[in-house]
């Protein structure tokens, strides 16, 4: 099983690598001959929320510095951090902060995670375009996902059952949503997702189902939201201002469901990894963050 897992990972890395090569060909940037300076390799893995951004960074960075090879894979924040603990990646992407238990696990393997905040993200609550509901409070969203509200008519919508969509439990977005929205940040609260919540394996799956199904409600990172779904305005408590998530409203700390996105390295990163992280945090790197619908961190 382990060997199978490894070979699958290898295959994925290989295919990412291969597609990178093909891209290089089509860009006619054949400047790097095989015999040039030795290639430096950065392996980057983790959060599916970050994966598109990480790919965009990697592609741009490799164009700037052809001697660097960066392979990017997704799989979820837990997957990335697990890989960091096993010391099989250079950089782990995570859409949540590392847990105390994971730091302890890492210490057992002589791995010391070092944290970098690389962007911010807002979680948008989405419904079908035909749904008349426009705004919800955090309490209402919590009640929907924990199963206390089961029909749209209870919150001013049509008489339709509510179908709740979530990411799988290995997603950082799932854990963040559970802790900050369903439990509203209360660590003592043991409320769970209602058992009939659909756990979909990908962000795209959630968007597709919300687009097609007028009963559905889901959540997803702001970067994944398309025009085909309706974004709900959210207020902390009923009666407050209802805020639509956007780069401006997140940067002004108005939108309540926003979070930091992280990269973790094992100890102080090697020089070439350090340079890559510095570039990500530079204006050029953060420009890509903005282009992909996430929130850049320059202002802080």
């Amino acid at each position, binding site marked *: *099983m382990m060997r199978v*897992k490894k070979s699958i990972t290898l295959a994925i890395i290989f295919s990412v690598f291969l597609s990178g090569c093909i891209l290089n060909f089509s860009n006619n940037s054949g400047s790097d001959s095989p015999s040039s300076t030795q290639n430096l390799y950065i392996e980057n893995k983790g959060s599916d929320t970050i994966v598109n951004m990480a790919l965009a960074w990697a592609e741009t960075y490799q164009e700037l510095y052809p001697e660097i090879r960066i392979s990017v894979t997704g*799989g*979820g924040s*837990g*997957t990335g951090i*697990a890989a960091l*603990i*096993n010391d099989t990646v250079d950089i782990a992407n995570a859409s949540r902060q590392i847990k105390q238990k*994971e730091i302890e*696990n890492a210490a057992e393997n002589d791995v010391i995670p070092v944290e970098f905040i690389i962007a911010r993200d807002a979680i948008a609550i989405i419904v079908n375009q035909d749904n008349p509901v426009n705004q919800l409070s955090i309490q209402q969203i919590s009640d929907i996902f924990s199963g206390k509200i089961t029909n749209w008519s209870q919150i001013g919508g049509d008489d*339709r*059952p509510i*179908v709740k969509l979530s990411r*799988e*439990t*290995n997603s950082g977005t799932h*854990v963040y949503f559970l802790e900050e929205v369903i439990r509203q940040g209360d660590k003592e609260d*043991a409320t*769970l*997702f209602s*058992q*009939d*919540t*659909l*756990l*979909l*394996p990908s962000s795209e*799956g959630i968007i*597709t*189902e919300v687009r*097609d*199904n007028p*009963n*559905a409600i889901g959540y997803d990172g702001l970067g994944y939201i398309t025009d085909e779904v309706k974004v709900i305005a959210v207020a902390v408590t009923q009666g407050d201002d209802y805020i639509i998530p956007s780069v401006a409203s997140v940067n002004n700390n108005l939108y309540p469901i926003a979070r930091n996105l992280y990269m973790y390295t094992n100890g102080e990163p090697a020089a070439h990894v350090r340079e890559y992280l510095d570039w990500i945090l530079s204006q050029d790197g953060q420009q890509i963050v903005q282009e992909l619908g996430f929130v850049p961190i320059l202002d802080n």
Partner: protein
Amino acid sequence: MSGYSAIFFVMMILIFLIGQGLPALGQVEFSSLFSERWYPIEEYYGILPLIGGSIIVTIGATIIAVPLGLGSAVFISEVAPRWAREILKPMVELLAGLPSVVLGFIGIVSLSPLVREYLNLPTGLSALTGSMLLGAIAVPTIVSVAEDALDSVPREYRNAALALGATEWQTIWTVTLPAARSGVLTAVMLGIARTIGETMTVMMVTGNAAVMPDGISALFSPIRTMTATIAAEMGEVAEGSSHYHVLFLIGIILFLISLVINVTASSVIFKKTNRTEKILS
């Protein structure tokens, strides 16, 4: 030699599964393991809804695939003219080569909205959608094996039946099918084994909600299967954690289920032919 190596590999897999899965019984309490709540990140390890989910999807797929598969096999072997047979059989076998992720994608994009609209369900990501796609996966296996079995029934049986005045329909139902029953049962068993082990398609279209199925109505709501759970969660678990061992325990249960199916199938095959058949042959 290669036959023995197959046994060797199966034994190795079994030993590995048991080694990784049995510690779960020590780490997780029995009452928790057989509860109805699966939410591993908060240490709820109730596997009953997962077993139920797998069973519901498999039953649904069997109901769809067996009549369809056997019907096609009978048609191809007994009714269709030779030229049609030459085209149909390779076509059906080609269907078996369709990657399950492609079927899953078709399921999400076109089948699940159809299921939701026509049956007026809250969502189309349900056990039924999964069953329909799994049925499509099982049909080629069933057709291929059952057709071979029907084909190997001696010509004389049919001629004798027809000579006694039986219609073609009566010949198929009362002579050919019963004579080929061991092969036909193998076909059905292999088809079921194929559906219970299928992962990608069910993960994409069944909604993966770990709800305990209550009777046949569960076919119309989302469920979570054992295979989808292993596939979705194995990537993130820390090695050696209770969650990790429970996932392997689920693997053992899956292994046992397909073992039972296979043993049943082979016991049918090796059953002695009855007296009438001996006299006839």
